[in-house]
Structure formats: structure tokens, C-alpha cells
């Protein structure tokens, strides 16, 4: 797995960090596409995707950002046992942003792939 962040020194280039952030936000939107999800499960699942995030805790500020941007909304629901749970749901604005990202991502990915494989040929 290519490591972007060295856990010892935490040196990530600002550009990489920014890129990762933008991609991550849309991955969250994609994870909510099939329906609302319990915040805890959402965070656990995202953190379990190899190479996605450095820690579970850093996902919460991102969820807050998405909520403020109106891409997701959260609501409290009673749980069969224990305290009420916070659920996240995609808004129509979020769904639109996800669609746009999908198109952009595929184009960007293909372009990078072409350049990278071209570089290999000439190198």
C-alpha cells in the first residue's frame, strides 16, 4: 500500500492532503448513496478502507463540514438499546455533488493513467 502519511513525522504535502480531503468527502457521499447510515458504522467502515484515512476521529470534522455545506443531513433515532443514535443521510445537493464528482473522477483518473503509462513507455 503506498503510504502518503508517515505516522512518525506526519508529513503530508499540502497538495496531497487537499486532494485526499476532496476525494474523501465524495467517498462518504457514495457510502450514503444507498440510504442513511448510523454515524458510528459509517466512520468504522470508512476507516476500514485501506489507505483512506489516518484515524477514525478525523472523519468527524469532515462530516461536520459536509453537513454545513448541505451535502448531508443528520437526525437522531431511537436505538433498541442504549442512547439515541445519529444517522447521516444524503441530501439532493449531496447526490448532485456525487454525480458530478463521479464524472470528474473518471476523466481525471483516465488522464493520469494515460500520462503515467506514457511516462513508463518513454522512461
Amino acid at each position, binding site marked *: 500500500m503506498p503510504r502518503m502519511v508517515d505516522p512518525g513525522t506526519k508529513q503530508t504535502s499540502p497538495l496531497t492532503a487537499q486532494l485526499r480531503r476532496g476525494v474523501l468527502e465524495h467517498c462518504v457521499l457514495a457510502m450514503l448513496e444507498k440510504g442513511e447510515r448510523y454515524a458510528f458504522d459509517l466512520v468504522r467502515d470508512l476507516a476500514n478502507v485501506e489507505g483512506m484515512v489516518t484515524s477514525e476521529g478525523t472523519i468527524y470534522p469532515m462530516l*461536520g463540514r459536509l453537513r454545513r455545506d448541505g451535502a448531508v443531513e443528520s437526525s437522531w433515532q431511537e436505538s433498541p438499546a442504549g442512547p439515541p443514535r445519529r444517522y447521516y443521510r444524503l441530501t439532493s445537493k449531496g447526490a448532485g455533488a456525487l454525480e458530478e464528482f463521479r464524472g470528474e473522477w473518471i476523466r481525471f483518473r483516465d488522464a493520469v493513467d494515460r500520462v503515467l503509462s506514457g511516462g513508463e513507455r518513454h522512461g
Partner: protein
Amino acid sequence: MADRSVDRYLRDLKEDVRDLPKAQQRELVGEITEHIDSALAEMPAHTEADVRNVLEHLGDPADIATEARERLGIHRAKAGLREYVAVILLPIGGLIIPVIGWIVGLVLLWSSPVWTSRDKWIGSLIIPGGLLLPGELLLYGGSVCSNTSVNGQVATDTCASASGCASSSGDGGVRSRRGSTDRDRHLPRAPSERALARLRRMP
């Protein structure tokens, strides 16, 4: 036992997010608390190691705070030469160049993006800027006060309130000095200690 490490974790987090807007602080600490509760609720018979594992997965509170700051577009400035010079000049600058040294320290303090307004007031009035100023003024014959004291008492009062030492009166250096020291001892220490701790944590 387990609760204690959770408490410590949440306390660290609260401390680290102190410079975020209040609403965001509450929101973030609330969500992290819920996360811990949810994780521990899954393991009714959790051990200390389980708790540690949950907290390790959450990550360093400082990292969460950094992420939140970046998501909010808040940039915490890093302490540089200006900040160190300010901290040196505020207590002893007046001894190097009477009054001017302290004022330069004050200007550096207030122009720094590192500290909050609250920190700056503390820095100006209590520590490190305010503590020695009354003493310095006396040491140098109250250069600010007496030079300007055309009508004595009024000028001295203005000077005293500016230095955060309400008890310094123009009559007799010794008494006035003891008065200010007593007062300083009664000033709240906790905020100034936190301000210093914050400075120390600056990279």
C-alpha cells in the same frame, strides 16, 4: 479505570479544539463522545485494553483538532521569531531599554497572529507583560508616570490602570511596590498558565 482514560482523552480533545468556534467545539466533542460510547456499548465487558484500542483507532486528539481547523479554514499560525522576542521583551525589555523595550514587546504581542485576543490581554496585563511593569516603573523612577505627572494623581492613576496594577500610588516606592506584589499574587493564575502552556506547545 477505563473511564479515566476516556476522560483524559476527551479532556485533551477539548483543550486542543479550544480555538474553534464554540458551536463546532461542542459538535465535535459530542460526536467523538458518542463514538466512544457506541464502541464501548458493543463490548459490554470491555477491558482496559479494549478502551485503549477504541481510543487508538480514534487517533490523536491533536490530529482531530488539526483536521477540524483545516475543514473550517482556520489556520493556526506557528510561533516564530516575533513570538519569542515578544515573550522575552515583555518581562525584561523594559530593563534593557526602559519602557520602550516593553512597548516593543507589546506591539509584537498584539501583532502576532498566534495568540487569541484573550491571550493578548493576559499577556499585556498579567503575564508576562504586566507582572514586572509596575516594578520597572518604580525602578526607573516611574519614568512614564512622573514624567507626565503634571497634576500628579490623575496621571498616576492612568498609568496604573494601563499596567493592570490598580494599587500603585505615587507616594513612596516601597509601599507601592509591596502593594502591587500582593495584588499580583491574587490575580487568577490559571488563564495565564494556560497561555504559557499554549506557547510552549507551539512548534
